[in-house]
């Protein structure tokens, strides 16, 4: 079953795309369902698909090297949880307070795949509630953009915005890590 054009338009990246164009995108996406704990994306994998989440909550996590009592170990650390608000998740979402939750009517994950061929996944994504989602492939999207170039401008702008934000955060992280490194060296 395809999503409705309105469902597509709820996703931030497509919010400025005309509803008729959203219908074209909806026509190449199938709604799928999965259970909690199912892994949608794996860190380090390459892919050319964007995941569009229409209902439910997902957790984004990364593998981190941490020091434990028994030495160094790789541990998966949750970074953020994304939760739909229209509609709300079908089951109670995770509410553990240490992880930040971002709410949106619907959202897309892996948006860089709409630009890059075989983009590397930078984090794991797991469902934490029953999930309704769709997959938009780079090939399908590129074909739509070829036929309707006006879609590209607004979507690529949102993807670029997201990339710039990530770059600013990464720059802050490098600065913090450098400071922490020198701080630790001088103690």
């Amino acid at each position, binding site marked *: 079953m395809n999503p409705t054009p309105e469902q597509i338009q709820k996703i931030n990246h497509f919010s400025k795309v005309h509803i008729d164009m959203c219908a074209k995108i909806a026509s190449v996406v199938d709604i799928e369902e999965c259970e909690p704990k199912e892994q949608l994306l794996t860190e380090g994998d390459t892919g050319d698909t964007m995941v569009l989440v229409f209902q439910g909550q997902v957790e984004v996590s990364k593998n981190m090297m941490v*020091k434990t009592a028994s030495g160094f170990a790789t541990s998966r*650390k949750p970074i953020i949880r994304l939760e739909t608000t229209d509609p709300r998740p079908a089951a109670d979402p995770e509410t553990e307070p240490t992880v930040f939750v971002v709410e949106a009517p619907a959202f897309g994950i892996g948006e860089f795949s709409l630009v890059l061929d075989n983009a590397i996944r930078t984090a794991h994504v797991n469902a934490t509630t029953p999930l309704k989602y769709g997959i938009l492939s780079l090939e399908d999207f590129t074909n739509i953009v070829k036929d309707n170039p006006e879609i590209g401008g607004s979507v690529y702008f949102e993807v670029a915005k997201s990339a710039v934000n990530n770059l600013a955060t990464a720059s802050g992280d*490098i600065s913090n890590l450098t400071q922490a490194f020198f*701080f630790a060296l001088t103690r």
Partner: protein
Amino acid sequence: MNTEAPFDQDLDKEVTSTELDEVLDANKDLYNQLNQIPEIEAIEAISIEEDIASESEKESNPLSEFFSRVQGFYNDNELVRYASWALVLILLSTTALTILEYDMFYNDVIADVDGSFTFGNTEPNWLDTFFHTFWWSIVTFTTVGYGDVSPVTHLGKFLTIIIMLLNFGVVTLLGGAVASVLVAQRLTGDDTLDENKFEGHLVIAGWNKTVPSILNLIDSNKDSTSVIILVNETDKDIIQRAIAGYERLDITHIPENFTNESVLRKAFLDKAGTFMILPDNSGLLPHEDPDEDKTVLTCLTAKSISEACNVIAHVLDVENVSHLQRANANEIVIPDEHVPHLLAKHVTDPGVPQFFDDLILQEEEDKGLQEVRIPKTLSGQTHNKISAFYKFKYGWLLVGYAIRKAGFSLDEQMGESGSPLIRNMIKEQLDGAGINLTSDEHVIVEINPADDYKIDEKHSALVLR
């Protein structure tokens, strides 16, 4: 620092009396203006209120405090523990024997007391019998054994056998505890320190000829702490002679090795305000130099006990400064640091070295250069007003400020930049490695700042009294 043109550039200019009057009037206006600040009038009352508030905070429920003290005394004192259990045992055996041998003890009371002393009116009651049995218990426990009373039934005798065997153990333990306490006191010279008076006190580790002068100066400043603990292995008699004669100071001597953590804990370093580490001449011959590694080691130990304690280290060898900085010493004092400066000043500015000597060596009570707390209500005022306040109210000359600067805080430095995940991970990992996220608070000075220099609560005044 004041950045106005040097004073000698203005020397050649003629100053008219009108100009002088103008300057004086401006100052007068400033004083009058200051006097109109309502807070100034209220300062005394506020200071008193603050003192009362801080005292009332210290008060707590006296009953719970009493019980916690008794509990602490019981836990800390082996002798009290054994004595308490011996008493419980005596009371238990007395109760048991009173019940088992009631008839025998009852008849004994009648025979012994003969009506002269009874809790009952005409004949002994259970209390008389219990007291009589208690007498028997004490006589047995203390191994005196008068033999005036003894159990009759088999059960009573059996119980007495158990009591006598138990008594053997208790008396032995009690005797052993008394002996161990006496031996411990003999070995450590421990006159158990009263924990309550040690809060914000000064601990001085090490002994050399500068210590009496340090004590003299502290003694003459009434605002500084009066409770001091000296930790060093110098002969007790030498210390006693050196610390006699201070009226204000309450000095305790711990004759042990100050590099040991347990010894520093005994000096309540966790509650100390300042910890001073000096080159230790204890047990050295006149030509021998003190071991300064001890100073670095002690600084590390002190900081592991209390990160907040203000550690002042005095070193003779400049090489040790970097080690002490790494060990987080708050202030490091190096001898002869000012000598080249003083010598040069004898040539360039005669009078300055003499002034410096007078200022530093001033030992008269409450005189000389001192650091005083600025009333909270004056926080936010400018330097000229603070200066006028001290001059106007106390006749002191404000020469500058000591400013407590918070150390570098990695947490503050990182702020909200980057992802929270990375920030939390940095904090967790550094915390796990035992690295504190903030460096220590330290003091910097601001001498004779510009008139509009603003004062905050981190400032305290350096005044010449």
